């Protein structure tokens, strides 16, 4: 998280943190373990009232940011979501709301309103089944037939797929990408739950079998959504990174506490140099994760040319080094660290799942290599 927040941002972050403490303490997260949605509507509406879903939406559509840079403000919420391992479709609903807002969405006015109030949630159907799940790869077929648009293909994992009221589907029309907003329950859409490494979020397989919706369901223009989809991916990476850093912070803080409290051979774990040095390494990874995540979010919010490079640097670093940090936290806890009873796994899960979504560290390194080649070797 940024070192210096404005007083408005700090108030917003603090209010979010308090609401999460109140509504989704770890006891509630455990209770929701077997809930099909993983969160309840009241919780989501309370957050929406606070502004969780309006930060990336322009004022003409009823949204608004705190600082003028909505993504920076949203990242504060995402960071607190990570710190609390909070449930709810924060990332996907915001990505969809921003896209509808950006695409002139007069036809989507009502949907945006529902998302902003928290009455409805939306999700993004982006990734496809292996082996077609590489970062940014899209095969789902979108055809324009007269006044209709027809979708065929499968998306997974789709966050909150069974709970979402609206599905933003990214598909292919010839050489270019097309995005379509499909209401849940449309004929030909089938949603089946997936197993997940997460306990607070739900993921589904969403299949589209000759799904037919009116032409005005296309967001933007058919076959021209490539840049828009890149922007969405950038936002998803930025929000996912902020969440992951929040989860790392909580796990690290818990482990530092543990090291002071736990005695072995008559002295605290924190007095062993081998462990002290591991904590020093973790401190450097954690601070570095904060630093690069914030830099990437700032760049993406400002839309500067360095944004893709910073986002991929952040995702690859936080994924790899953050994973090591998380597993070191488990290791230092010992056996209790791999039990369900201990809370550590809630944060481990948040980081782990985010690492695998919207580009693995290796995929982001390939993107960085592309950038190095274009910039330095041209």
């Amino acid at each position, binding site marked *: 998280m940024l070192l210096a927040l404005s007083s408005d941002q700090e108030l917003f972050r603090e209010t979010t943190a308090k609401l999460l403490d109140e509504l989704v303490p770890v006891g509630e997260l455990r209770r929701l373990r077997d809930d099909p949605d993983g969160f309840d509507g009241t919780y989501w509406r309370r957050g929406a009232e606070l502004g969780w879903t309006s930060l990336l939406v322009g004022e003409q559509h009823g949204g608004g940011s705190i600082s003028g840079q909505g993504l920076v403000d949203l990242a504060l919420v995402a960071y607190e979501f990570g710190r609390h391992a909070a449930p709810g479709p924060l990332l996907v609903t915001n990505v969809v709301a921003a896209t509808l807002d950006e695409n002139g969405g007069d036809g989507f006015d009502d949907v945006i309103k529902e998302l902003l109030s928290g009455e409805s949630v939306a999700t993004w159907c982006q990734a496809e089944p292996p082996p077609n799940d590489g970062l940014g790869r899209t095969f789902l077929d979108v055809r324009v037939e007269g006044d209709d648009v027809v979708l065929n293909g499968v998306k997974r994992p789709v966050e909150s797929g069974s709970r979402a009221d609206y599905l933003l589907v990214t598909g292919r029309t010839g050489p270019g990408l097309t995005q379509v907003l499909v209401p849940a329950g449309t004929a030909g859409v089938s949603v089946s739950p997936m197993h997940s490494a997460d306990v607070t979020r739900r993921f589904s397989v969403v299949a589209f079998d000759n799904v037919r919706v009116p032409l005005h369901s296309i967001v933007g223009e058919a076959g021209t959504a490539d840049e828009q989809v890149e922007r969405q991916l950038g936002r998803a990476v930025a929000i996912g990174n902020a969440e992951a850093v929040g989860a790392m912070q909580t796990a690290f803080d818990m482990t*530092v506490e543990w090291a002071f409290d736990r005695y072995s051979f008559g002295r605290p774990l924190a007095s062993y140099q081998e462990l002290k*040095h591991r904590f020093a390494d973790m401190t450097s990874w954690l601070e570095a994760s904060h630093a690069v995540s914030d830099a990437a979010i700032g760049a993406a919010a400002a839309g500067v040319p360095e944004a893709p490079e910073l986002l991929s640097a952040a995702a690859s670093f936080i994924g790899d080094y953050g994973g090591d940090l998380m597993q070191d936290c488990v290791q230092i806890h010992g056996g209790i660290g791999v039990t369900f009873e201990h809370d550590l796994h809630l944060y481990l899960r948040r980081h782990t799942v985010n690492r695998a979504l919207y580009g693995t560290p290796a995929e982001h390194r390939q993107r960085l290599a592309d950038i190095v080649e274009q910039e330095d070797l041209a």
Partner: protein
Amino acid sequence: MSDPGVGDSETFRQRARDFVRANLQPASARTPAGALRNDRTDDEELAEVAREREVQRMLFDADLAGICFPREYGGQGLTPAHQKVLNEELAGYEFPTRLQAPTLSPCAAVLLDFGTEEQKRRHIPAILRGEEIWMQFLSEPSGGSDVAGALTSAVRDGDEWVLNGSKIWTTGAWWSDWGLCLARTNWDVPKHRGLTVFIFPIRQEGLDVHRIEMLNGSKEFCQEFLTDVRVPDSDRIGDIDDGWTVGTRWMFHERMLTNSPLVTVPVGFGHGGTGVSSLVGVAARDAGRLSEPVVRDLMGEARMLDIVDRELRLRIGEGIATGSMADQSAAITRLFSGVSASRIRTIGFEIAGTAGAAWTDDDGQLAFSGDDYLMRQVSCIGGGTTEMARNVISERVLGMPRERLLDRDVPFRDVPRGRASSRS
């Protein structure tokens, strides 16, 4: 002299840009100084030093030297934001590499913190004009990380001090002018309480500079032997026996490295003074392996580390400047940059393939990657080891229990200094 304090940073930027473009040459494609490569003759090295002094003088005359140094000592009295602007405008141009660390920081920084008015007026303007290059006489052959265990002695003789002992790991002492030296003035108190800091010219009777040959043939590092070197008491920095107060601040400045606003580092100038991730890309191209996914993975990793290192420096620098982080947090950047620089060396070596084992002059960026790999750990040793940084982070930043210090409350004279003395 025009008023350097004038104007907003955009006016300053224009002034810096005009100067840079009119007076400086594009940065040399050659590996920067400090990379510890054996790729220069002594004459070439001396010619580069002379040019850097000249460039420093040009910067001084253009009111662009010592941006964050006070005006009364020849600086510009401007802000870190102005220094950042200068760093941006210098991107891709030559700059006085060898005059930054340790001359401007930690040495000049220590003078600013602890020097007398007379000392500051005498030396800081000379430093900013490029006339004095300084070295840290800090580490000793017997000491390593235990800097406070210095054995170099200073004995009072009237208005003078007489110094004897040996210092080591000074970079380029053979072409430098002044030394900042930590010496022992009292052997009958615990080690931290018997130290004093002095300054003296390097080229003088009784001070022998010996150049150390590193395993790759580089002779950048030196060891000095002090035999009855006489230093006037007016060249003492800080109080007698209070050298550790100075030393603590000294090492803080050292850990700040290029994060210090007192130091000029053009944007894009790689950490550790060595090209880095773009050079890894050049190496991949020179090896003809740009299309190999494994090589691209390594290129991506190197770029990632570069970016993260930069952003971490900015964050910690901001935290320390605004007081939201303790000064000791500088150890976090020191640890990270040391480890990541060594990883980038390994990546370069990996990409070089067999050219890492043996190379020709036509191998471009692949040449020397084997030597660089052999020297890899330098980034984790020089400027305070990463192990010491880990101690500082865990004990001073996280507040974990200190390591037991067996030499803490013992007169330094009685502290064991080797296997033989610990047996008694």
